[in-house]
């Protein structure tokens, strides 16, 4: 069961993103009020705002943490067409005594001519890299060649997506068998039904990102996209927030079978599709083992999805904005009428292995 802890965020406009750090002890929020706040969890489990500062001159769409190996580093992106990298300053000061920390801007990435809609650090094994995407349909990949110098970033790749981009996700797999891969979603709302999710893969030979796949079935505006933590899986799981929640698996087809050098071919299956939010889905987020997906939609609810041993994804919980479980099975939709509507003991359902699945 979940306990809701309400936090007085005190942002002066909408909060657009929340992000936990690597260790789950810190949280960052960003808002249209152009500020980012950092929250630290105290011993008692309370969240305290330890920093709040103006980051941009427009709505801040996203905030994301870098791997702590690179320091306490945040990246933010904004309507003001920039993305910025921030670092926490360690040192004795009055701020520290008041329980406040100080963040300084290390760089501003100004290449976009339109609103930067998402920013994501690459998986750690790739080094200190980050990707941004913008409303003009360009994904940019930056690298800090010297991880000790956060103020120097070079633009490594520019990938044109032809569609206004809204979200990106790195494939987190650390396997050498999986080339760096990035999925891009578009919220382009023009009526011409073009596929809104593209997947780009790094090609060692050409040293460029090339389109590996397009999810043709996703034609509605996509608001969020998330690869599940890979954790040694041979395939990838991708969650998409569009007018419904969708979960795809991407199984790389063995290299020997495909022509070498070209992009990896994937066997793509849609394994779940839920319209239980009855409206636009805004966010999807995976738990740390990639076994539970949380989604939030215009109904103001968070829904949790989990696969059973047959690889059937089902709703395992609904959380309202105020944390109480939603009652009434009508909320659950018709796809899984047998499901109980209250939240099961997550302790059990999160034990990824307690529910087995026949290995194929």
């Amino acid at each position, binding site marked *: 069961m979940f306990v809701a*802890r309400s936090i007085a965020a005190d942002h002066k406009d909408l*909060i657009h993103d929340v992000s936990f750090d690597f260790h789950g002890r810190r949280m960052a929020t960003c808002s249209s009020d152009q500020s980012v706040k950092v929250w630290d969890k105290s011993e008692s489990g309370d969240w305290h705002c330890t920093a709040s500062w103006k980051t941009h001159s427009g709505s801040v769409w996203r905030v994301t943490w870098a791997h702590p190996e690179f320091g306490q580093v945040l990246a933010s992106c904004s309507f003001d*067409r920039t993305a910025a990298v921030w670092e926490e300053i360690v040192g004795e000061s009055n701020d520290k005594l008041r329980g406040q920390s100080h963040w300084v801007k290390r760089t501003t990435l100004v290449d976009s001519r339109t609103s930067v809609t998402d920013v994501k650090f690459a998986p750690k094994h790739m080094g200190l890299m980050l990707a941004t995407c913008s409303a003009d349909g360009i994904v940019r990949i930056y690298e800090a060649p010297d991880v000790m110098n956060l103020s120097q970033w070079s633009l490594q790749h520019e990938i044109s997506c032809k569609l206004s981009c809204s979200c990106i996700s790195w494939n987190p797999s650390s396997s050498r068998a999986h080339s760096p891969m990035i999925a891009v979603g578009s919220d382009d709302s023009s009526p011409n039904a073009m596929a809104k999710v593209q997947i780009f893969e790094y090609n060692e030979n050409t040293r460029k990102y090339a389109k590996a796949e397009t999810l043709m079935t996703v034609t509605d505006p996509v608001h969020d996209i998330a690869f599940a933590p*890979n954790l040694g899986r041979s395939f990838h799981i991708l969650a998409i927030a569009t007018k419904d929640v969708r979960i795809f698996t991407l199984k790389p087809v063995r290299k020997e079978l495909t022509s070498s050098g070209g992009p990896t071919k994937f066997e793509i299956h849609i394994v779940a599709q839920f319209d239980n939010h009855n409206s636009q889905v805004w966010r999807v987020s995976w738990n740390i083992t990639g076994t539970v997906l949380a989604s939030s939609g215009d109904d103001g609810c968070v829904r949790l999805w989990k696969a059973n041993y047959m690889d059937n994804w089902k709703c395992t919980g609904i959380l*309202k904005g*105020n944390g109480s479980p939603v009652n009434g099975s009508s909320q659950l939709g018709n796809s899984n009428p047998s499901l109980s509507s209250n939240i099961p003991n997550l302790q059990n359902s999160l034990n990824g292995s*307690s529910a087995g699945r026949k290995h194929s």
Partner: protein
Amino acid sequence: MEKMSRVSTALSGSALTGRTMHCHLDAPANAISVCRDAAQVVVAGRSIFKIYAIEEEQFVEKLNLRVGRKPSLNLSCADVVWHQMDENLLATAATNGVVVTWNLGRPSRNKQDQLFTEHKRTVNKVCFHPTEAHVLLSGSQDGFMKCFDLRRKDSVSTFSGQSESVRDVQFSIRDYFTFASTFENGNVQLWDIRRPDRCERMFTAHNGPVFCCDWHPEDRGWLATGGRDKMVKVWDMTTHRAKEMHCVQTIASVARVKWRPECRHHLATCSMMVDHNIYVWDVRRPFVPAAMFEEHRDVTTGIAWRHPHDPSFLLSGSKDSTLCQHLFRDASQPVERANPEGLCYGLFGDLAFAAKESLVAAESGRKPYAGDRRHPIFFKRKLDPAEPFSGLASSALSVFETESGGGSMSWFVDTAERYALTGRPLAELCDHNAKVARELGRNQVAQTWTMLRIIYCSPGLVSSTNLNHSVGKGSSCGLPLMNSFNLKDMGPGLASETRLDRSKGDTRSDTALLDSSATLITNEDNEETEGSDVPADYLLGDVEGEEDELYPLDTEHVHSEEPEYVLPQEAFPLRHEIVDTPSGPEHLQDKADSPHVSGNEADTASLAPVDSSSSLLSVSHALYDSRLPPDFFSVLVRDMLHFYAEQGDVQMAVSVLIVLGERVRKDIDEQTQEHWYTSYIDLLQRFCLWNVSNEVVKLSTSRAVSCLNQASTTLHVNCSHCKRPMSSRGWVCDRCHRCASMCAVCHHVVKGLFVWCQGCSHGGHLQHIMKWLEGSSQCPAGCGHLCEYS
């Protein structure tokens, strides 16, 4: 332009109709101004000065005011203004400092009326008095503002800005004598046209130049100013001191600001660099523009609302040489596209959720609100100018925490910390890990460990050292196993016999004798086992019948799945083989006879029954094993590891990989192993399980993983005696030839954990130093340093 729509507005007497449209100009525009009939617009620039008629479908060029063969600098316009009372009267400000008035009523081609050459530098702005037909005001880069009476040849009065360049001048709409001027130093001044000697009021409005200002058309005291500091500020000028009412933060320096007609809180802005868009803001929501026009490809230089009482038509001129008419309902609305929710899954299974308050509130409210809530999503909301302001949008932030402190990932942490991966015999490791898993309620994992033990801990495989070890602790390793199967019908006598046997087995001299007898026992037991059928069936995974008895702890799920996958169909052929092939003893005999069997192995064989007879199961297992080498199971084990990995339980995959070591390593390709290791290590580090993570790195056989531990970490140490850096390797100082790692408390050389103060280089055993520091903060070496340990 697929989104163009048509709008006609009923105004008093006349109706404005039109659509979003644009026309190409010959040259970049610097400024535009609309005629009071709202049907014509004048565009002025460095090399353009034209009047266009605004028709329903298009702009039509009506008049080119740039006449004459040789281009005159007087025609290079920085600003243009159309008189709001006289349709024939225009004024332009030239970059060479000349102010020109134009009379469209003149019959000749050249409409130029009067020429004022009083300014010395560029005139940035000209402004007609809103009600007085003949009064024109100009503001120039030279720091002066001049008031002209069009009936006279030169200026009536000059206002000095104290050599600060004037960027904008605007007559107040309501106060007859008042005008505002803005300056490059960030100041705004308020003047009375009757008093040119000094300004009525002056205040600093912005950091850096104030490029523009606009009086509110209705609110008498409100002045909006825009500056290079990217801000638009709204001032209440009625109070004694100008009071900042609102502040809008835009993304680029503000070049023009214009209040939107009929919308008290709306104003339009454009920028002079970087940003080509025109924004309309509601000053009460200062962070998100209410509307955005994105038509221009270059900087927008002039904006004007088409009619002073129509809020839907906006005209703009741009450096991209186009003139545009924007329809408000065609504007893109960033608010609508903005994501109202944030969601993040935390490490411990907690969820952070931020949502627009109205969404959350609607959710907790009654059903009827449901429709309203979704309305704006499916139908693009028509922006009604009269629409009441819904208030500042705000979000509710909450963190959903899993109950019971540790959260739902505690099983992972516990498992990681308690698993034994090395240092003990395989059987014991498996048993231990099975126990850990069972205690954490993870029965499937527990069973897997138990099975691994059965598969691999066969007499032929366990080395003698391992075995001796396990024999010594026989009860501790055998009994849990037994418990796990909950075997009820095991004879207690057998167990005691076993212990007896074991004690004998320890003495080497008896080995040979025991060998045969033990084999015999084994055989007998086997027969029994097969007869009774219970354990054998269990091993075959064909336990549906006894399931409930065997797994009292299991949850429903595990029940049905367990037999399905842990031992898939492969188990069945196994059984047939057993039936078909000759019975155990011969096989064992063969083994003993073969020259490959070392003493150790013989030992093992003899001791095996001892070890396993404490549980019937192991005995029966020994039988199978004697026919089926563990290799037989390797496919199964490999599949099992892959299964766990695909399920997201990389912990199990890696733990088994480490525990089994060489036994399975060859079956799984190097890349996959490395992938599992790196994934697991990453996960451990997330949970700050550094010790476990290091152990895993150490135990891994993958080169790419084990080198993680050898990544460059350099310790710089000073000798505790001579305080000089220790340059050589090791702990003996080059200079004073003494061992530097002496404990300052007990004066012994420290092996293992050595802590030292980086200030005085003294240190010692962790425990000693900790204890010392409880009593004193000074260095235990007596150097007087107040040691600091982090």
